[in-house]
């Protein structure tokens, strides 16, 4: 059995499989990918060649195992009602905050985006220099626009997408980002830059972001290095009285090759890495997609005494990921990065850029063979 994990964080997975298709051999039995949009192409024939991903829910993976995953967590793996991959970890967005700072400033944790925005405006006046989020990363739309039910990425079929950014849902989130960017409480800076660490260590009051921010930026000596006992987590915010939903930023997936001669062994391996406590609870750094493992993982994290609050909010958020935002082959992150980020840096507002964003998404969808709207 062969394993190829080098597809992490790049598009080399697709490239490699296409080249194996051309060569007619060489496919690994099992692939790990850190992307969410691989099932979109791996489930489809390309140029008449057999689709790479094996169908998992038609006898290969037991029904019991599949139903053990957190509800909604297999959405990125599901195309036309069939499951093509198993989710390794979830990346649901939550509201991270520094409890010590919030207590010190006498603020209460917001429950809605409106409260969040009001607090951001208050912070700008009372404690300039502190921030309540960041909008320089490519996944900004996945945290703010997805969480606001903005219809920018409604994948309606394997090759069809509906895009409409001219909605109240999109505008309210855009306007929030604009307002809090102008008062410098949500700066256009990527959390993975030396710039961020230098300027904002000790200054992050709140940060809406994926579950993996805990290890990647807060509890990381190379990054913000927040001391134990300060970091708190709150459930995803809702807009007004709407039922809160949230976005998602990545989360790994495991694929089995449809070309594999060791389907059974491959299935056993993939089932082990996604569900077994030995890996998902004892070793995995991210929030497990498999519900039973996730519970134990949360208990283990809480016992570390690092967090200032319980981690219930992460578990709640896990099944709140809004399903109106799909997983197409083109990268929404790349579109946002090249359309919105330079525009905003050049002094435009996101509200004004919404039509450009829509156009950019439609163009990108079309060159990837999608029918738009």
């Amino acid at each position, binding site marked *: 059995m062969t394993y190829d994990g080098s597809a992490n964080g790049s598009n080399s997975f697709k490239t490699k499989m*296409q080249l194996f298709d051309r060569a007619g051999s060489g496919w690994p039995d099992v692939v790990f990918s850190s992307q969410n949009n691989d099932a979109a192409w791996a489930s489809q024939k*390309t*140029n008449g060649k057999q689709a790479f991903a094996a169908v998992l829910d038609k006898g290969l993976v037991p029904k019991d195992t599949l139903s053990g995953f957190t509800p909604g967590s297999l959405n990125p793996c599901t195309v036309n009602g069939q499951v093509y991959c198993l989710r390794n970890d979830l990346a649901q967005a939550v509201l991270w905050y520094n409890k010590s700072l919030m207590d010190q400033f006498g603020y209460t944790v917001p429950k809605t985006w409106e409260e969040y925005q009001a607090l951001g405006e208050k912070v700008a006046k009372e404690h300039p220099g502190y921030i309540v989020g960041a909008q320089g*990363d*490519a996944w900004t739309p996945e945290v703010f626009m997805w969480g606001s039910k903005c219809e920018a990425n409604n994948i309606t079929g394997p090759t069809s997408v509906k895009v409409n950014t001219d909605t109240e849902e999109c505008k309210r989130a855009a306007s929030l980002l604009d307002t809090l960017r102008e008062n410098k409480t949500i700066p256009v800076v990527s959390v993975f830059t030396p*710039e961020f660490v230098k300027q904002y260590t000790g200054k992050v009051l709140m940060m809406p972001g994926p579950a993996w921010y805990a290890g990647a930026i807060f509890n990381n000596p190379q990054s913000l290095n927040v001391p134990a006992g300060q970091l708190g987590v709150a459930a995803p915010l809702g807009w007004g009285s709407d039922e809160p939903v949230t976005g998602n930023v990545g989360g790994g997936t495991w694929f089995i090759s449809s070309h594999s001669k060791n389907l059974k062994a491959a299935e056993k391996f993939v089932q082990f890495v996604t569900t077994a406590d030995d890996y998902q609870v004892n070793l995995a750094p991210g929030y497990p997609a498999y519900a039973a493992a996730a519970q134990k993982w949360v208990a283990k994290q809480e016992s570390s005494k690092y967090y200032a609050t319980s981690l219930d909010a992460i578990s709640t958020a896990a099944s709140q990921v809004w399903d109106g935002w799909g997983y197409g082959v083109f990268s929404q992150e*790349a579109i946002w*990065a*090249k359309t919105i980020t330079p525009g905003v840096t050049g002094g435009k507002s996101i509200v004004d850029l919404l039509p450009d964003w829509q156009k950019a998404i439609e163009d990108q969808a*079309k060159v990837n063979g999608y029918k738009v709207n």
Partner: protein
Amino acid sequence: MTIAPPSDQLAVDADTRRRPARRRRRATSVGYAFVSLYTLLALAFGVVPALFALGLAFTTADGGFAGFDNFVKVVTDFRFWPAVEHVVLYLVIWLIALVVFVVVLALMVHALRVRWASTSLRFIYYLPGALAGASSVLLWLFVLDPTASPVSGLLRLFGFTSFVQVIQPSHLPVIFAIIAFWTGAGGWIVIMYGALNNISTEVIEAARIDGANAFQIAVSIQLPMLRKWIAYMGVMSLAAGTQLFVEPQLLSQASNAVVPNDYSLNQLAYQYAFQQNDFNGSAAISLILLVVALLLSWVFVTRGGLFERD
């Protein structure tokens, strides 16, 4: 007294008669040996892939004849014309800067009378060129980030406080031109310096006796005699410049796609081949690039008199 000389004489005669022929034969075979390795590599990595691309560009994914469909497809792609614009802007800025600064710097170094200053300057110019393409771009990622840059003061002087401000779309052609100049110009300065050394001292002396100053010598004698070398630099740099890839590709990854991954034509070709699994479209872009580069090179070659014999 001897009677040997005649035979000796004969032998010598025979030798002198034969030697040039032998030498010529040896010279030609050495020439072939030198050229053969290059020819083999040029065939394997230049001509054969180009022919393969030619075939791909006019066929469909399953091998049928496509006519000009692939060309129509890539030219009407919404990413194509912006990429053309990016590459043209970059080429204009870079080629002009390269020609002007390389020639001026070479003339200045050549005019230096202090030997150690001249050699150390040439060495310093050449130094950045010793870094391979990708690694030098990585170095530039730090230079361009105001929080990490050794020249952050200069960046702040321009009003840049963050990396995204530095790499705004309108700045990119200049940034890529500066990176390319920094990595490539040193080698050309050394070559130009060599070309300047080839201009006979008698000509320069004669000019000096006629009362020409350093500036007049540079403009009226050295520059015209460098014409071929400048054209040569133009052709080589043009070919390299149209293939702009490493700089935007690395900057794209480093900026998490704020610099788009389809900024240049070569990147777009790469996207076609390895993201869209469309080798035919990719080949069409490559062919368009090849034809344009050939046409422009022809202009340089004819205007620069590159193939004229003295």
